[in-house]
């Protein structure tokens, strides 16, 4: 008989306070790119389930709004992306179709990295003849490690707001991450001193944050018009520039076509380096720390070549 009352009590209270059961559910985070997924794992630990919409060898500009991603948005508590129109071709569809309120713009579950850091290369003129440009500036903000630190704060705050019962855990992980990140950045800063002023040619204008932070100098880009494969006449100009500028290295991301950079290597013998660009873009770049470690190591290797 007593057990019966207990059951009734539990059922009634359970109905009145459904939060107490829900609060133990992990927070679901959909990251648009692997770097934000990696950061979410650093801060969220076991309290979150992280899914990345893209992998390290994918170009986040051009992803299909796959049905599976609609399902992910439908369940997500946080959508964590680069913003600045990087995902404009597919994220709006997912957000509208998934129709999850907490992850919509203005809600705590909506984090666009570019909204929280200084965005570079905001165009003065916006015209499609300039290619697939981003009116809000260059969205690849994660390649400056200082931006990662800023976003770590933002994410921890949002997690604490969405899941207050575990806010202490998020703050502890944030503190631990920030101290390890500061140490790592100090080390990287020293290493970049050797690289300062090194001249590079990039495939696509995806690297300004890395170049700005590490002091590398961009000579030109193989893609004259962003998002449109290089033309022969432009490649001829690049070839002239490459020969006369003392360019040390041609940089390309894992998802970019190899033909233009390989052609230039064939003509000039300037080495081509495929930098990881994001977590998973290189077999050894498995988290945010190794992403920058590997990137600097690869650049140092070409710097050391005669």
């Amino acid at each position: 008989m007593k057990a019966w009352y207990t059951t009734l009590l539990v059922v009634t209270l359970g109905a009145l306070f459904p939060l107490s059961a829900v609060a133990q559910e992990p927070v679901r985070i959909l990251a648009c790119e692997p770097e934000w997924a990696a950061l979410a794992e650093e801060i969220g630990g076991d309290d979150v389930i992280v899914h990345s919409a893209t992998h390290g060898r994918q170009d986040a500009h051009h992803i299909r709004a796959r049905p599976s991603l609609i399902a992910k948005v439908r369940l997500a508590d946080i959508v964590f992306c680069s913003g600045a129109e990087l995902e404009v071709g597919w994220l709006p569809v997912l957000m509208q179709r998934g129709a999850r309120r907490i992850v919509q713009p203005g809600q705590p579950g909506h984090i666009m990295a570019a909204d929280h850091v200084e965005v570079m290369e905001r165009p003065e003129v916006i015209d499609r003849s300039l290619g697939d440009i981003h009116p809000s500036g260059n969205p690849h903000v994660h390649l400056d490690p200082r931006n990662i630190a800023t976003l770590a704060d933002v994410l921890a705050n949002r997690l604490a707001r969405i899941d207050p019962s575990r806010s202490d855990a998020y703050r502890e992980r944030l503190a631990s991450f920030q101290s390890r990140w500061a140490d790592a950045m100090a080390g990287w800063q020293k290493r970049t001193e050797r690289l300062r002023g090194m001249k590079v040619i990039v495939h696509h204008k995806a690297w300004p944050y890395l170049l700005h932070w590490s002091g590398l100098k961009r000579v030109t880009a193989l893609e004259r018009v962003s998002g449109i494969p290089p033309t022969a006449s432009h490649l001829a100009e690049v070839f002239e520039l490459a020969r006369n500028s003392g360019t040390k290295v041609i940089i390309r991301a894992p998802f970019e076509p190899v033909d233009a950079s390989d052609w230039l290597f064939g003509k000039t013998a300037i080495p081509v380096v495929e930098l990881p660009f994001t977590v998973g873009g290189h077999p050894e770049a498995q988290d945010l720390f190794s992403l920058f470690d590997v990137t600097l190591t690869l650049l140092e290797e070409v710097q050391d070549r005669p």
Partner: protein
Amino acid sequence: MQKIIGFVRAAVMGLPVLILASAAYPQSDPPTTEELAAQISVLKQDYERRIAMLEAQLASLEAESRSTDRTDPPGVRTSMPARDNSFNPAIGVVLDAMVSEYSEEQSGIPGFQLGHEGERPDEGLTLGHSEITLSSNIDDKFFGNLTLGLGVHAGEPVELELEEAYIQTLPGAGLPDGLRVKAGRALWTFGYLNELHAHSDDFTDRPLPYRAYLDGAYNDDGLEVSLVLPGELYGEIGGGIFRGDDTPFRGSRSGREAWSAFARLGGDIGHNSAWRIGGYILDGEARNRSGAAHAHGDDGHGHGEEEHEHEEEEHAHEEDEHEHEEDEHGHEEHEHEEEEHAHGDFAEFLSDGAFTGDSRLYGIDFRYTWAPTGNARDRELILQGEYFWRDESGDYMLQEEHEECTDPSDPSTCEVHLDDITESLSGDSEGWYAQAVYKFLPQWRIGARYARLSSPDDADLDDDPYTLSTMVDWTNSEFGRIRLQYNRESFNGEDDDQIMLQYIMSIGAHGAHSF
């Protein structure tokens, strides 16, 4: 045939149930005593935790005001630079034109009514469908879209068609998560292609079932509700009610004579491929539905005098054309005419008559995409197919000219009368297509498509219509594409070789692509 129909019916009906079962949240078993004890202790701590929560919330708000974090007011995108015109709706224009060569002078799918959109495009240089789209968030709760189509058909003034004018709820509207309501006129959810604008198709023309059953696409006036179900797999169910004034329906009296229901399921296979399947029903009534040649005055309001005059003009016009053809083709044309009559006049009723009756369309679709490197922009294979079954029966009314002379020896006493002849027929038909498109270089794609219809039994035709298409297209940027396509259309044993060269360019705002 009946077996196949039965199977399809069962599959379409069963699909929503299957999805509901697979996508619903797992239900927990009744709790055991230990679990109850644990739950009570959890509840005991609840108030303590609530206090802790409030404290944490306070702390987090304080921290937030210190950090660079900011949340934006709903509906405002701070990443867009503020400009004077930032509240203007997004404007997008699609420019589309083609040049084509056909081996046959005439084209029509015997046994099927074809509207303007379902017809073969005009031969030679022709402007296809230009489109203007205005869209914007109305406020934090609604999104609005207006799409005007500018259709150009040979010898007719430019036709302004209201393709879409709808509002749609935004996730901020306060509806439960995953639920959306769309109202107005829209390309409704039916099969794969219907909800997409034709300029995003992989081939120049829509596949046969869309041309024959839907006159290109179903964009009636109405309201649709859809719900994305919570689950690891994508599942969506929905349905709508519609006016019933667009093909396959016409002449709505009550203004709410059609309805639809659908269910979809989708997911990933590994990292680089994705799939989606769906089942659909579209049901309604038609009154005096007829094809493009008879459609001008006919919007279902019965038979005014004006319409009769118009019909007569049409007939006169057709006669002119026939004479003209006979000049060129001589005996051949005569033989062809006789042949058609030998197959029975019912085919003519089905294709040229005005249909009044019930029409129901079942559909299933699938789509599979595979990007070998993960980057659909570099290389991608897309397989897509749809199957339709049309359940349609009713009266087909054909007007036949009939000469009556008071004095048989004197032609001047003769008068031409139009007689309404009505036949009760079944327009049941199955249609399907399957296509493969492969992007082998970032800017180049090739594709092949096979489409087939089964002629309605009452049409009594020897051969079912089919189309075999191949295409190659070049995409300079995602805003501009040029396509070359070859079709072999075989309608009742007559082959039409078609070559089409088309451009599709878009300026201004460009909506995000769906799967």
